[in-house]
């Protein structure tokens, strides 16, 4: 799509584009290039010597048990976060959609956790689940569950999933509600007149019509679980105990910042970039499909 009527001039548009392009090149293309370049090098810890090692860093990363552990954690974590955040949000949105006036009120009451930073969400849930101080943590111990997310890896995973889902619920709810409200009432009325029960109406009409929204949200939720939850994990568990909640992005941080293993950290970054590009490409194809139907 293009405008027919335009302004003339060459210098002005370039001057207008310059700030954006400068930021993009300095803080995007340069570092991305650096990441790819470094992923092919091996550097000693003091940065004194470096040699070209080809794809060795990638081989090492992909066969490193701690990386595989982080990859598995990421799959479990993002799978749980996406499934719970989507399922609960859809359930609540369907309930809210039943009454037109109530819907906006409930929306107002449910959307604000979106504004809470992941690390702050972590602190809120920590205060509830702390084994000696937190109300729920103490409650669990009182009924005989030896709850301690600082020692038990499963407990730690449960806690980061809860905090991550709590924060993402609002976002999904907004989109599901908007999607539900855009389904024409006539379609549902027709189904009701044909005698379809509410449950049947949901699974045969509403759910398929919502599938573009669901798919879009699935990609967004996975991206969220991969990257934005860094704050939750860093504040709550530091990837522990014993790396039980160390996700791929957390490992990039630990290897790059704490262990100063730049080559491997860069190789991990490149692998993450590939994952994100794949996710984005899938998302764009889905959006295109949505436009076509």
């Amino acid at each position, binding site marked *: *799509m293009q405008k027919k*009527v335009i*302004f*003339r*001039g060459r210098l*002005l*548009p*370039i001057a*207008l*584009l310059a*700030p*954006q*392009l400068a*930021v*993009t090149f*300095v*803080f*995007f293309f*340069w*570092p*991305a290039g650096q990441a790819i370049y470094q992923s092919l090098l091996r550097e000693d810890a003091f940065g004194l010597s470096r040699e070209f090692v080809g794809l060795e860093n990638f081989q090492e990363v992909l066969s490193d048990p701690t990386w595989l552990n982080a990859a598995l954690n990421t799959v479990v974590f993002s799978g749980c976060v996406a499934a719970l955040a989507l399922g*609960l949000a859809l*359930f609540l949105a369907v*309930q809210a959609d039943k*009454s037109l006036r*109530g819907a906006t009120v409930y*929306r107002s*009451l449910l*959307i*604000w956790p*979106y*504004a*809470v*930073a*992941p*690390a*702050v969400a972590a*602190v*809120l849930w*920590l*205060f*509830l689940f*702390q*084994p*000696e*101080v*937190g109300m729920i943590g103490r409650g669990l111990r009182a009924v005989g569950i030896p709850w301690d997310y600082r020692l038990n890896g499963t407990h730690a995973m449960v806690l980061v999933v809860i905090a991550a889902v709590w924060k993402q619920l609002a976002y999904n709810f*907004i989109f599901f509600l*908007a999607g539900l409200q855009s389904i024409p009432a006539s379609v549902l009325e027709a189904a009701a007149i044909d005698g379809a029960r509410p449950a049947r109406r949901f699974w045969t009409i509403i759910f398929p019509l919502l599938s573009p929204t669901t798919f879009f949200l699935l990609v967004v939720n996975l991206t969220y679980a991969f*990257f934005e939850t860094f*704050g939750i994990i860093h*504040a*709550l568990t530091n990837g522990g105990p014993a790396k039980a909640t160390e996700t791929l*992005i957390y490992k990039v941080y630990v290897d*790059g*910042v704490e262990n100063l293993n730049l080559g491997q950290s*860069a190789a991990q*970054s490149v692998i993450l*970039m590939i994952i994100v*590009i794949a996710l984005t490409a899938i998302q764009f194809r889905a959006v295109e499909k949505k436009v076509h139907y």
Partner: protein
Amino acid sequence: MAPVMAPVATPAAPARDDALLRATRRRRMLSHLMAHGALILGVLIVAFPIWMTLVGSTHDAGTIGRGDVPLLPGSHAAENYAIAWNEGGGRTRTTPASTMLINSLLMALMIAAGKIAISILSAYAVVFFRFPLRMAAFWAIFITLMLPVEVRIIPTFQVIVDLGLVNTWPGLVVPLIASATATLLFRQFFLTIPDEFVEAAKIDGAGPLRFLKDVVLPLSLTNIAALFVILFIYGWNQYLWPLLIINDRSMETIVVGLSKMIGRGDSQNDWNTIMATAVLALLPPVLVVALMQRWFVRGLTETEK
């Protein structure tokens, strides 16, 4: 659905239809009641951690340390908030919340304003001009959409180190203001501005900058407002980047500062002042969402599609 069902009760068969109508109504009311019940439960569960944080910020450290946090607020609110505000929360009391809040506010405002400014300018250039490599420039910006800062964090950090920008405002803000999303949104919107406007401006002798200032910007105000809400929250909630770039305590932002207070989550900590800091940290973005909800929902659904 209700208006369709209501006229069914025709006088021809009043008794049977009345019964049917009542049964339908009863069923619908029951389903609505259950819906409201589920939603109220959902709202309560979602609000519970915030409520307990508020409660925690009003008790003394001893009560919380013993694990006796009640469900209702206590009487120590003023002193807890005063300590958090003036000295800083937690055992360490490193940076006062007042300083951290100002830092967070500056960071959020600069990121939001910076993103909007450079996106408007670049979208304006791409839509209203023809020049060599126009589409190449557009795609160069577009590609940034794919890689969130977290993915390229270490190499970007090295660029900042090379440029000597550690512990500076430009180092904190500038890498975060490249935004393909905002550029795309403004481009989409500018394309809907009718060609007649441009023609009229040209006939009146207005140049491109005048047209931008007097026509395009006023027309874009709702889009700017919607985007501002989203970007303010995005900026306020930044975590990994400030964590790396800032090690000067006077530049600490509140989200990072808060997470440093909790350490390893020991029970022997000043949880009361930590909770007061948490309330202060989440209040500004939550208020922005609550007060500008219309813009917020609009900004969210439009930037993501």
